[in-house]
Each structure stands twice: as structure tokens, then as C-alpha cells.
């Protein structure tokens, strides 16, 4: 299969090209800053000249504000990282000729694609874990202790949300030799999903529902449907299968 060999190379690439470090720094910063910003928001407004009048309008920050801030920031920047890390994963290798160099050897194309997805998933997982630890510590310190199991489940859903767009971007990257076409295609899916996500009837069937579910979980509100999770899992599976099918038909 050579999946392990390809995976080790991809992990080395994540480390050498500083992607892992960038992801950890970026997400951890937002994990840390989100509860801090929620806590300090009234004080920030009060400190701005002329903002004192608004400070009085802002209700005292709660743990819900900290969590909402965390979910919003981590999902936004997590998806951005997914798109940036995956857009050139295959397209650049095809364009530069490294894919031809490696795939003329006994490296199955399925392993080549899957190793990339797994390595990027691991990078996002490590970065999100660091962000979650930072977010947990600061939220507990500034507000109150978060329930651990729902907090883990919430981060699990955020990770799934990021991986969905990673898989979709990887698919577009497989189709083209230009990474900007890949990110364009994936951004199109993201915009479409966001529009559909805001519709009351269709919203629950999009990956955007994961973000709502994540917030509901931590705030101990009942999650009425898990369609977002199933759709995301199916989308990841379809994207990877489609990548593999398209890639094995391509000439390098």
C-alpha cells in the first residue's frame, strides 16, 4: 500500500514547511484570545473615547459569550487553514512534476491522496487540541469551569467541520494544476454552503449545522438533529473517493 511511507513524508512536509507551527500558533492564539476578548469587551468599549455610552449597553459577559467567540473564531480560521493547506496539495505536485516522479514508482495513487488528507487532518487536530487547551484554561480562569465532555464533543464537531472543507479542497486540487482554481472551487462550495446554511429548511443539511450543534452542545441545549454531521462525513467520503477516481484517470 505504501500509505505509511507517504504519510511519513507528508508529516515531514507539514513540519518542514512550518505549516504545523503556523496552524498551532494561529489557532492557539484564537483559543486564548476568544474568552479574553469576551471578558474584556465592556472594558475595551469603556476605554475608547466616546464608547462609554455603549459600554453601559453591553450586558455583563458570560461563559456563553466566551464559547460563542471561541467557536466563531476557531471555525473561521480553521477553515481558512484547511483551504490554504489543501489547495496546492496535489495541484502543485502535478505542476512541478514531483507527482510524476513519485507515481512512476510503486506508490498507489490512492495512498498518495489519502496520506495527504491524513497528514493535514493530523496537523489540524494537533493545532485544534492546542487551541482547545488554551481556550479551556482561559475560559475556566476568567469565567467558570466548562463541562469537559461537551467541550470535547464541541471541538470534535469543529474538527469535522474543518476536515470537510479540507477534503473538498483536496478534491479540487486533484482536478487542476493550478492551486488558485482549487481554492476558488472550494471557496465556492463554502459560500454556497453558508447561503444554504442560513435557510431554515435546508440549513440543517449543510456542514454549517455543525457550528450550531457545537455551540448547542457546550451550552447544554438539546441538539435536535445530526444531519450536519452525517452530511459532512458523507461529503468527506465522496470528496476523497472522487479525488482518487479522478486522479487515477489522469496522466502526469
Amino acid at each position: 500500500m505504501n500509505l505509511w511511507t507517504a504519510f511519513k513524508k507528508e508529516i515531514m512536509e507539514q513540519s518542514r514547511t512550518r505549516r504545523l507551527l503556523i496552524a498551532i500558533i494561529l489557532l492557539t492564539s484564537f483559543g486564548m484570545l476568544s474568552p479574553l476578548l469576551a471578558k474584556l469587551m465592556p472594558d475595551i468599549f469603556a476605554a475608547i473615547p466616546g464608547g462609554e455610552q455603549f459600554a453601559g449597553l453591553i450586558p455583563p459577559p458570560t461563559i456563553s459569550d466566551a464559547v460563542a467567540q471561541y467557536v466563531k473564531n476557531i471555525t473561521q480560521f480553521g477553515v481558512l487553514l484547511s483551504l490554504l493547506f489543501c489547495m496546492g496539495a496535489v495541484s502543485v505536485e502535478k505542476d512541478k512534476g514531483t507527482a510524476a516522479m513519485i507515481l512512476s514508482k510503486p506508490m498507489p495513487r490512492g495512498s498518495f491522496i489519502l496520506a495527504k488528507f491524513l497528514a493535514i487532518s493530523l496537523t489540524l487536530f494537533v493545532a485544534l487540541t492546542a487551541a482547545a487547551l488554551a481556550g479551556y484554561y482561559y475560559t475556566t480562569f476568567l469565567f467558570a469551569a466548562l463541562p469537559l465532555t461537551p467541550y470535547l464533543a464541541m471541538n470534535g464537531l469543529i474538527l469535522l467541520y474543518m476536515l470537510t472543507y479540507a477534503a473538498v479542497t483536496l478534491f479540487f486540487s486533484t482536478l487542476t494544476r493550478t492551486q488558485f482554481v482549487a481554492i476558488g472551487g472550494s471557496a465556492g462550495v463554502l459560500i454556497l454552503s453558508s447561503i444554504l446554511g442560513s435557510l431554515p429548511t435546508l440549513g440543517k443539511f449543510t456542514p454549517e449545522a455543525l457550528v450550531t450543534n457545537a455551540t448547542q452542545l457546550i451550552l447544554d441545549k438539546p441538539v435536535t438533529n445530526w444531519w450536519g454531521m452525517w452530511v459532512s462525513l458523507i461529503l468527506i467520503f465522496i470528496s476523497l473517493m472522487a479525488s482518487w477516481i479522478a486522479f487515477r484517470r489522469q496522466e502526469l
Partner: protein
Amino acid sequence: MNAIQIDDLHKHYGQVQALDGLNLQVQKGSVYGFLGPNGAGKTTTLRILAGLAKPDGGTVVIDGEREQSPEKPSLHIGYLPEEPAFYPWMTPLEFLNYVGEIFHLDGHTRKIRISELIAQSGLQDAQKRRIGGFSHGMRQRLGFAQAMINQPDVLLLDEPVSALDPAGRKEILELILSLRGQCTILMSTHILADVERVCDTIGIINSGKMVIQSERSELLNRYAVSALDVELANGSSTRLEEISRLFSQVDGVNAVTSEQNVLHIQTADVQGVSQRLMQSIVASGIQINKLEVVRPSLEDIFIRLTGEGRVQA
């Protein structure tokens, strides 16, 4: 026995017919020189053999295995593309280790093989440097090393020495020569002197078809074109065009070409033409360094068979 057997291979890209019924046979253990002008179909053929492109028709058999598949490239093939590409953040040691793992070489074998190849390719001083900073020649040598890591039965080389300096070229050609009999080599190149030097068999392809395929000596004999070379002395070299015109009017001369101060004269009657040329030289007061009968070169044959005015890749 043939290590590579290609029959009636077809491949087109849109309106362009890259291969048009190509037939090619490479004997086991031989070094096969694959020649042709630009766009003749050499690289397409090698890419099909390496499993990177799919033919539209025809059959390819390598070492008894029918056709390479993108999902199952052979463990017994080494491939060096025309422009080998690497991960710029890797070192040669890491890249060769990665390729060795792909070929399922165990740790001990990999270590020995990598150190042999690093030494062979003259990259000892750069083995721990990032490939991103390598020159074209260094990349080419590393490309050759990675193609050899699995000690392949069949080695496919697309312009293996085109980016090398004379010393590097000599080393790689000697390496190719040393592999004769151990593995089968199919190399495309535009440097005809290299083909003459290392190849046992030569195939000339044009417009996707094999024009001729023969053993080197047989090819040179069959297409022998008698020729004379006249090297002009310094005093006469400024009159190159005038002398060239004069020689072309000599009875029995088929064609005159020039390179620097040497005139290359093709003829079917070497004896008669050399006498008449000498008379003409004396009568016109032309100063020469030498007049000699030369054997036909592969370049002459190549130009004649492909109709190319000059030799290209």
C-alpha cells in the same frame, strides 16, 4: 529475448498524433538509444512505459509484464524524467530514503544503497543540503541516483545527460556503460556522440513512427555516406563561402556543408573527387591543413532519415 516490446502503439493529444503505430524492441541487457527530433514522441513513449500516460492503442510489455498501470507501477523499473523534480525542503539523503521505502527496501539495504548512489553521483558534499538550492546538474545526478535505487531490471532515461557539464556527462555515460549487461537501458537523447559511444542499438523515431531500428554498427554501415573533410588553413578560412561554392561545383560532389574552418563534402566517389579537389585547391591557391576521408556519423544518418536540417532533442 526482449526486455521491452512495444507493438503498434498509438497516442494522441487532441488533434496531435503523438504516437502513430510505434513498434520498438529492446533486447535484455542492452543499451538502446532513442533518437528523434522535437515532438517525435520520445517522451510520450517513455511516459507510457513508466505508467504515467495511457496509450490509445497497441501493447507494451516490459520484462514479461503487460502494460504499466497507474495503480500498479512495476517494482523493477527505474525512471528518470527529462526534468527531474524534487521536494525542495528535502535533502538528497531524505529523498533517496523516501524512494527506497517506496520500493520496500529494508533499512539496512537502503542505507548501503543510498551511500553507494550518493558516492556514484558525486553528491557527498551536498547530501545533507536542501535540494531547493541545487543546480540543474546536481538535480540531474540525483535524478539518476533515485532511478537506480531499486537496482532496476529496466532503466528508462529521458535525456539523462542534457543538463550536465562535460565531466558530469562523462561520469554518467561511464556509469551507463558499466550497467550494460546488468540491466536494460532505454535512453532518449539529442547528443548523438553519446549515443554512438554507449548504445548497442539505436532507434530513430519521427512523427510518432519508428523510422529505423538497428544495431549501431549495422546502422552506420548500412547508411554509410562517403565523405571528405577539408580543413582550411588560417589564410583561407576567411574565404569559406567562396571555397564552399567552388567545391560544390566539382564533378561528383553531392553536398558541401561547413563548420568553422572545416568543409564536409559528401560524395559517392571518394577517390575521384579527392583528386579533382586537390587540383582545384592548387589552381585556386587555397591553403589547407588537411584533406581526409571520414566515416559517416550518426548525425549524418539522423539528418538523412528524419529530414531534419539540424539535430534537435
